[in-house]
Every structure is written in structure tokens, then in C-alpha cells.
């Protein structure tokens, strides 16, 4: 009985739909005129308008990927690429319109800001509606603002970094992003400044048949450190929505950046996101990634270890249920001496969902004395689901230590028996084992987000096992 009831469960707070009210919504489709109109609406400098138009040309010249999930249902003629909400950018939650504020309240953003964050950005459809940061960080010279403000107020800093880490011809959906990007966050942490409490940007897409294309640009200058958290969600509609964001991280010499993501897009979302970090001498970037939502996800964060002694770690989990095809993974290029990478990826497939771990480790000729260790584990919860592991290991020098391990299988019968002999029901035993499987990832998250992740796992598992 319980199982049946829970299969019909909604995704509670994430599925709350507001009315599709906006100040401006661009017509569906992708033409030069539409791009020019977006640029005009955003009152941008000429260089940015020209950049968008060039990106559109690149988009039109590139083919869809010949690998990975089938993207044929994506019809750009049915997607509105720019939706301006009926709210200006605010620095006080009181000024945010009631229904939008309520949404973020229910997602717990203002509360988290009070208790555990040093700054918050909140984007609703195509524009950021709230941005704020603690006074002491402003005094230290930290910049945390929406991308549009950054383009206007820090043009030199933006111009030398914008789409330099992720070039516009990287792939078709990066080109699309370059043409229609809107919103997102800009962070600059000056030399030597340690931001001990995380900053968080939250992206909410409310409008149906639309896309979100936020651009996140983070520069952590020499010797500085930062923990940045990104959250995203949307209510479910019948037609596809598109997310093609872009994250560019510049981690300069001796700097440290931790980039955590809890992705919980609705299950009609195509999440074709691109994230890349350029890592300097003795600098480190850590990625922590939880992927729960989306109909289709193609997401492979990438670290390019350009500086001697640069390091990166990736810790990620994907959980795919009915109708979901999550094609996620990680890419790393070792491009200097003494660099190191550690990858720990987990995936869970259930109720006919498909998880694919797809990766690249490339150790170039110049990356002497580098080390890389990759581990990926996949858990199958039933025999109607699919789990694939497709890792490419490209080693171009002899002076390396490289190892890769992968495992696939079901929950051990012995472990279930052991827990049941201690008084747990079969369902509880399985849920406990799955939470244990995910623990190495959840322990890397701040407590509140680990709790959110465990809740998401519970929500996803109820009705799936037993």
C-alpha cells in the first residue's frame, strides 16, 4: 500500500508552480533578431551584443553530439530563451515580489543566508532578483554580484575572463549559451583573502517552455580561498525546458576553490550545462556534485591543471529514476608537472532510470610526476534500470601513476540480511544501505545541504525499493 501511495508523490516544495507572470518574455525561437532583442532588453555594451551574434553563428555551424542521450526532442523553436521576471534586482528580501519571495522561502534560501552563508544570489527565470553579501567581505574587496552588474561595473575584469575558460566553440550548447546567456553570478576574491563561509547562488526556472542560461564566473586570486554553492530547481511541466548554463572558474596560483552543486531540476528539463576550471600553480579546485533532477543531463565538469603542483578532486553522485537519463561525469587534463587528481563517483539507477558515468583523464607529455586515481561505483536497484560506465584514460607520458577502478552491482543480500536480523524492515535496510553508499558524497557537503541531499534520496527511494 505504502509503495503505491508513494509512487504518486510529488516533489513537494520543488514542484510548486507560480503563475507564469513576467515583465517580458521573448518570442520562442532562435534568430539574429531575437538575439539582438535580448541584448537590447538587457541594455548591454556593443561588444557583448557582437559576441552574442558571433556565438549564434557558431551554434548554427555545429552539429548535435553523435554520442550520449538522444536530444531530438529539443526544438529551439519551442523555447523562449529570455524571460524577465516582474522584479528588479534587490538587496533586501522584503523588496522581492511576494510570490517569488515565497518560492525562495520554501526552498529555505533566506533562512540559510541568515544561518550559514556569507552571501546569496537568487535567480528567477532569466534574471537575478536578489543579491547580497556580508559587509565584512565587501570591505575585504570581495565582489559577489549578478553577471549583468559585473559586465557594467567591472568591464575590464569581465572582458578578459568571459568565455575564455570555456571557449564559445567548445560544443553546440556552449555556443547557444554564448548567444542567449542571462543572469548568473560573478565572484572575485582578491589576493590572499580567505572567505571561510560559503557563498550560494540559487537558480529557479518557473516559466514553462523556456530556458535558463545563467553564466557563473568566479576568479579566486592568488592565495585566496572560497566555497561556492550552486543550487537549482524548477517545477515540472509537460513540455521540455532547457538549461544550458556555463560555469567558468579561474583558480589562480596557491588559491583554493570548492564548488558544490545540488541539482534538482524538474523531470522535464534538459540539463546541458558546461563547467570548467583553470587551475594555477599549487592551486586546488574541488568539485562536489549531486545530480537528482532533469529528464536528460549531460554534465561533465572539467579541471585543467595548468600550474605546477595543481590539484583537483571530484566527488559526485547521480540518482536516476523513471524517465531520467543522467549522463554525467568528469574531465581532467594534467598540463603541468606534479599535478594530481582524485575522482570518486557514485550512481544509483532505479525504476527504469539510466545513469552513465562518462569521463576523461588526460595526462599530457609535460605533466611529469603526476598522479591520478579514479573510482566509480554504480548501484542497480532493479532489473529495468540501466547503468553504464564509459571512462577514457589518455596517458601521454611515462612518469605517472594512474589507476582507475569501477564496480557495478546490486545491494548485497548479505548486508540486507544482516540489517534485517537487527530488526530493520527490508525497505529500511535497503534505504540505509543506499544512504551509506551516498555518504562519501554527502559528508563533503555543508550540513544543511547534506540533510537536503539525504531528504532527496529518501524521497526518490520511497516507492522505488521494497
Amino acid at each position, binding site marked *: 500500500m505504502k509503495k503505491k501511495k508513494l509512487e504518486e508523490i510529488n516533489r513537494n516544495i520543488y514542484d510548486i508552480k507560480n503563475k507564469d507572470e513576467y515583465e517580458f518574455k521573448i518570442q520562442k525561437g532562435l534568430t539574429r533578431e531575437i538575439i539582438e532583442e535580448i541584448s537590447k532588453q538587457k541594455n548591454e555594451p556593443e561588444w557583448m551584443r557582437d559576441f552574442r551574434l558571433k556565438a549564434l553563428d557558431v551554434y548554427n555551424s555545429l552539429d548535435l553530439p553523435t554520442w550520449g542521450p538522444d536530444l531530438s526532442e529539443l526544438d529551439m523553436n519551442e523555447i523562449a530563451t529570455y524571460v524577465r521576471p516582474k522584479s528588479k534586482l534587490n538587496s533586501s528580501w522584503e523588496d522581492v515580489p511576494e510570490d517569488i519571495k515565497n518560492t525562495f522561502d520554501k526552498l529555505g534560501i533566506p533562512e540559510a543566508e541568515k544561518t550559514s552563508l556569507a552571501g546569496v544570489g537568487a535567480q528567477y527565470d532569466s534574471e537575478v532578483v536578489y543579491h547580497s553579501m556580508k559587509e565584512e567581505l565587501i570591505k575585504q574587496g570581495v565582489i559577489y554580484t549578478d553577471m549583468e552588474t559585473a559586465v557594467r561595473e567591472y568591464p575590464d575584469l569581465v572582458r578578459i575572463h568571459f568565455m575564455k575558460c570555456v571557449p564559445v566553440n567548445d560544443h553546440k550548447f556552449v555556443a547557444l549559451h554564448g548567444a542567449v546567456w542571462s543572469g548568473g553570478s560573478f565572484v572575485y576574491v582578491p589576493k590572499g583573502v580567505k572567505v571561510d563561509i560559503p557563498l550560494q547562488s540559487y537558480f529557479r526556472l518557473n516559466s514553462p517552455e523556456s530556458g535558463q542560461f545563467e553564466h557563473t564566473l568566479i576568479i579566486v586570486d592568488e592565495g585566496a580561498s572560497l566555497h561556492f554553492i550552486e543550487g537549482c530547481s524548477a517545477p515540472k511541466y509537460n513540455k521540455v525546458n532547457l538549461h544550458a548554463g556555463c560555469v567558468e572558474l579561474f583558480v589562480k596560483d596557491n588559491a583554493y576553490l570548492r564548488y558544490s552543486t545540488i541539482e534538482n531540476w524538474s523531470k522535464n528539463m534538459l540539463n546541458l550545462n558546461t563547467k570548467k576550471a583553470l587551475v594555477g600553480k599549487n592551486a586546488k579546485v574541488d568539485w562536489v556534485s549531486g545530480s537528482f533532477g532533469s529528464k536528460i543531463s549531460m554534465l561533465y565538469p572539467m579541471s585543467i591543471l595548468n600550474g605546477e603542483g595543481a590539484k583537483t578532486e571530484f566527488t559526485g553522485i547521480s540518482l536516476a529514476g523513471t524517465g531520467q537519463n543522467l549522463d554525467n561525469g568528469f574531465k581532467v587534463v594534467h598540463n603541468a608537472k606534479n599535478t594530481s587528481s582524485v575522482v570518486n563517483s557514485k550512481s544509483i539507477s532505479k525504476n527504469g532510470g539510466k545513469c552513465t558515468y562518462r569521463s576523461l583523464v588526460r595526462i599530457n607529455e609535460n605533466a611529469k610526476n603526476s598522479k591520478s586515481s579514479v573510482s566509480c561505483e554504480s548501484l542497480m536497484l532493479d532489473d529495468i534500470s540501466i547503468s553504464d560506465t564509459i571512462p577514457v584514460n589518455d596517458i601521454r607520458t611515462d612518469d605517472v601513476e594512474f589507476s*582507475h577502478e569501477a564496480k557495478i552491482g546490486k545491494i548485497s543480500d548479505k548486508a540486507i540480511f544482516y540489517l534485517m536480523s537487527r530488526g530493520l524492515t527490508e525497505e529500511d535496510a535497503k534505504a540505509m544501505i543506499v544512504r551509506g553508499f551516498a555518504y562519501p558524497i554527502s559528508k563533503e557537503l555543508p550540513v544543511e545541504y547534506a540533510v537536503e541531499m539525504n531528504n532527496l534520496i529518501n524521497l526518490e527511494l520511497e516507492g522505488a525499493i521494497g
Partner: protein
Amino acid sequence: MIKLNETPVRTARNFNINNIKIEDISLKNMLKDFENIEVMLPEEVEVENAISNFELKYGMNEEKINEVKENANHTLKLKIAGKVKEQVEIVANFDDENVNLIQNIEIIAQENSKANIVLKYKSEDDTVNYKNSIIRIKAEKNANINIVVVNLLNTSSTNLLSIENEIDEGAVLNYIGVDFGGKNSITNYYSKLNGNEAKNNIDVIYLGKDEQLFDLNYIGELRGEKTQIEIEAQGALKDRSKKHFKGTIDFKKGCKKAKGNENEFCMLLSDNAKSIALPMLLCSEEDVEGNHSSATGKVGNKELFYIMSRGFEYKEAMKLLVRARFNKILEKIKDEELKNEILEEINERLN
């Protein structure tokens, strides 16, 4: 250029592993008989005339499969019944009179049969050779087949090998591949484990020197219940040689309690050698166990130091370490003469 050896599942194009492009060699007008081939068949092995019509699921590519179907200058269909004590041997020696071999081999191992089969290809001189062969094996219920395929061609030749196996209930197929020769050596190996409790053990050693390129594509499809596949690959690359190792274990729906393991280790003996590995696990069944591991690195300094402290020169010490890695697989070869010949080749190629 010709595109060969597609992986069962594609990944990003710029990862450079979905297929291999090599310069095409068109042979139709140059193809002569290949006479220097010895086939030693024990009495229990029957030779049949007509090779079955077939479609390969993978193979090199359509053009290269058709080349074998239409132009083979050596065809052989063997039917194995009962326990065959003596070894089946097919040995092709290449020289300036025997340059190109287009070969089509079909082996049917009947129910409960047992046999050891060796196929060896060797260049006797520096002539540029071309070999394109297809080997198809059907291991019927409870058959037990050991097959060793040895490629000792020179390093300016082309070696194309497509293998397709069908393994029935309780049958065991042990495959050993020794891949040393060819400027381009490309293997496409596909096993379909149809029957319950069917087993396939695949052991591969490869040794690259000069500008050699190896593109090795091993695919095991587990369909029957309690089927098992083990893939073990040990390789060493010196000079500017390069290898792509693509190993796929595909658990199909219904292969309950199936197990698949894959382990690949590549020793890089030069700063200019390159190794790409794609160890894939594809899974549509819950009740299975799949593992893969892959490692790449140079010869361990500690091990080298230990051996050199016992009076060996650097080159000798390195040879010992490569042989030690390969021995695990070579020990499975029952033919002592063949094993010694392979060891000699290792010494020579590492000089």
C-alpha cells in the same frame, strides 16, 4: 584514410577513441595465393568445405569484412568432435612471396568437445605484409576450447583481426592473444555468451616499439544466467608506440548472477609512448557483479633498483620486469615451443 574498429557505444569525438583511422590499403589487384601456410589437424578434426554465410555484429568495418567474404586466399571450416588430444595448428609465415593474407576461418566445437588451437602469424623478413582475417567460433554446449592467436609480424605490416564467438550453455572458451607485430595492429573481438553458465577468459599481451599502433577492442556480451567473462590485458610500450585498449563488458537484461571482470595494465617504457584505455561497463541487469580496473605507469624504480643491485644492466632489468608481467598470461600457453618463441621475441623486440 579508413575508419575501423568502432566501439559498441560512442563517446565524445575529441576523446579520440570511438574508432581508429589508418591509411587504407586496397589489395584486390595485388592479391596472390598465400602458400606458406601450414595447417596441422589431428584426426578428430573434420574439415568442411562451405563456410557459412555470416553477418558480423562488429568486425573491422563493412568494407574489410566484405574483403574477407569475397577475396579470401585462405579459408578453413573446422568441425571439432570429442576430446582432441593433439593441438590444432595454423601457421602462416610471411615473406616476399607470401605478402598478403586474407583469411576466413570458422570453427564449430560440437557439444562436449575439447581442443587446443594455435594460430600463428610471423614475418620472415622486412617485406610489408597485410593480413586481414576473420575467425568465428561456435562453442556448443559444454565444449571447452583453448585458442591462442600469436601475431609476430614485423613492425611495418598491417594486422587486422576480427573474432566473433558464440558460447552456449556450460561451454568455456579460453582465448590468449599475443600481439607484438604490425605497424598497425587492430583487433576486434566480440563474444556473445548466450548459454547459462557460459564462460570466456580473455588474456592479452601486447608489446609496442618504434611507431607501432595497437587498437584493441574487446567486447563481451553476457546474455545467459551465471555467465562469466574475465578480461586480463598486460602491455608494454617503448619508443613512440601507442595503444588504444577498449574493453567492454555488456550485461544484457536476463543475465542474472553474471560476473564480469576486466583488468588492464600498461607499462610505459618511454616518455614518448602513449596509452589510451576505455574500460566500459554497460549494465541492464540488476543481479550482476561487474568490475574493471586499469592502470598505467612506468617501470617501478624500486623494482629496477632491486634487480640492478643483483648485477643486471638497466635494459636486462627492464626486460625481466616486462617478462614478469607477461608471464602470468604466458604460463597459460601449453605449447612449450611456442612459449619459448614468444619469450625470444620479447627479448628481441625490447633490444
